């Protein structure tokens, strides 16, 4: 079944198509939720809410070619995650902490040696505020001005949060490399 038919089936409430859509995208969307929340249980809750919302509003979705469905779903899960973080985690999540800034020998090569699941774990372990800004800037390619508007923070705060997030990840990568040498 191609994506068009899948969308059409979901638009008409076909449960087989709904299940097919879930099977096709659940793990990717779970990855997005986890990247934002850093918590498996919370991510599964968001996954549930997100798919329910998708099945409710899919009638308004217009298929515009390959990739459009995934982009649309990703946006929904990203927004859901941000909404969750705004309500539950972001109020005092932007305090700055001090991390060491020792350089890597070869950042690119070192990062390639680390499995994706470990990298995901590093992101998940970031403090909520850092993680959120890192996700928005790195994965959604959102400029700081927009991030600031989304999270109701200053633009400079967004910049410093991103810098701190990268510093923490850097530190974690270094530690991982050091432990697995």
């Amino acid at each position, binding site marked *: 079944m191609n994506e068009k038919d899948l969308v059409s089936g979901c638009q008409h409430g076909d449960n087989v198509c709904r299940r097919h859509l879930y099977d096709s995208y659940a793990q990717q969307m779970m990855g997005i939720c986890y990247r934002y929340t850093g918590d498996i249980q919370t991510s599964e809750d968001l996954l549930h809410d997100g798919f329910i919302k998708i099945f409710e509003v899919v009638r308004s979705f217009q298929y515009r070619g390959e990739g459009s469905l995934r982009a649309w779903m990703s946006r929904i899960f990203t927004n859901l995650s941000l909404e969750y973080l705004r309500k539950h985690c972001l109020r005092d999540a932007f305090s700055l902490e001090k991390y060491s800034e020792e350089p890597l020998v070869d950042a*690119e090569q070192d990062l390639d040696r680390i499995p994706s699941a470990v990298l995901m774990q590093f992101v998940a372990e970031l403090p909520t505020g850092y993680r959120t800004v890192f996700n928005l800037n790195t994965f959604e390619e959102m400029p700081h001005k927009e991030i600031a508007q989304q999270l109701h923070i200053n633009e400079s705060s967004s910049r410093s949060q991103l810098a701190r997030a990268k510093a923490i990840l850097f530190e974690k990568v270094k530690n991982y490399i050091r432990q697995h040498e």
Partner: protein
Amino acid sequence: MNKKEGDILARKFRERLADFKLPVSEDVWKKIERDLPPRHKPVMRGMWMRRISVLAACMLLLLGMGWYFSTMQRDVTENFGLTASETPTIIEPINCKKLSQKPQLTVIANGEKQSCIPSLHAQGRIRRSFEPASLQRNDNSNDESFVAHNDNSSIVHHDNSQSNQGDHKGSPLQAEDVATARGADAPIIRRKTKRPVTLALAYGNQRTSPAADLQGWYPRTFSEVMTLSEDLLPDNLSATDVHYDMPIAVSLSVRKNFAEDWALESGLTYTYLKSTETRSFPKGNTMSKTLRLHYLGVPLKLVYSIYDNHRLSLYASAGGMIEKCVSGRESTENTTSDLSIPELQWSLSGNVGVNYKLSDTFGLFVEPGINYYFDDHSGVQTIRKDKSLNIGVQFGLRLNY
């Protein structure tokens, strides 16, 4: 960590984690399945609205079909040249020994006999008269003359095929004669008053006035008249048949949804109308005239989606159209002339349609419906003027994008 390392780190994380898949517990789907919104049942939503729409569309369709077929039975060669207000009275047929053998048509004005003239056809059936209101023919077998016609006259038609040529040979038939004939054991005289609607329709089937009718059909100058053979000279009691070809319409339309089930449709419609009028004269001669008209129109319709699924969609639409005749041609056996109709043609329409989706992009549709055409007051007779309410079917290809 410098800026370059920071950028590398961000890029690497993006590449490795953008499509990262994380295993999901089966419980999640179970919860989703439990909380799933019910299957969309578009037929059930807005049930009353849909029912009313379907019912109204069907009723309009049935009414239109009923009207159409009832009027189709009507002979388009009904008498014309008389207005409904003239309410002629026809008496036919009559078998009376006192009457001449020839079928006769007597015109009685204000209760007084004016003339007695032969019938239009040997069958004794009055078809469409081309007699202008101002003229009447007086045909007493050997004598033909035109006499002034009184607007309040009525026509009495006699088919006396069994009668001899006695005392009344060639004489006009008076009302008293009719009464006498009835009393004298012969023929039963049937009086038939034509239905106003029939007259009005027949009259409307020509141009706006009898004078215009003659101008449209016959040479306009004296010299032209003289070039015609006697057989072709206008016979006041000639008859005509009008044959309308089925109108052909090709349209290109665009439909835009402005609400979930509502859409507006507009576009461009080209319509070709063709009609042929054949005029028969008592001596067997005929003349025909062909009218070809090309219209361009802009429709505007409101479309309501009644039902929609993977493959089929059912909808109803209602709206109007404004059309302009962009080209017209009137031709007889010998002459062809351009015809201009400056007046705009307005119409209303109601349709129900079924669309079969061949794919998400293409669909085949069929749209039966009814159309009502307002009189454009142009003076040019078309099928739209003759039958203002028409049924029609459109079918075609629909492109969705």
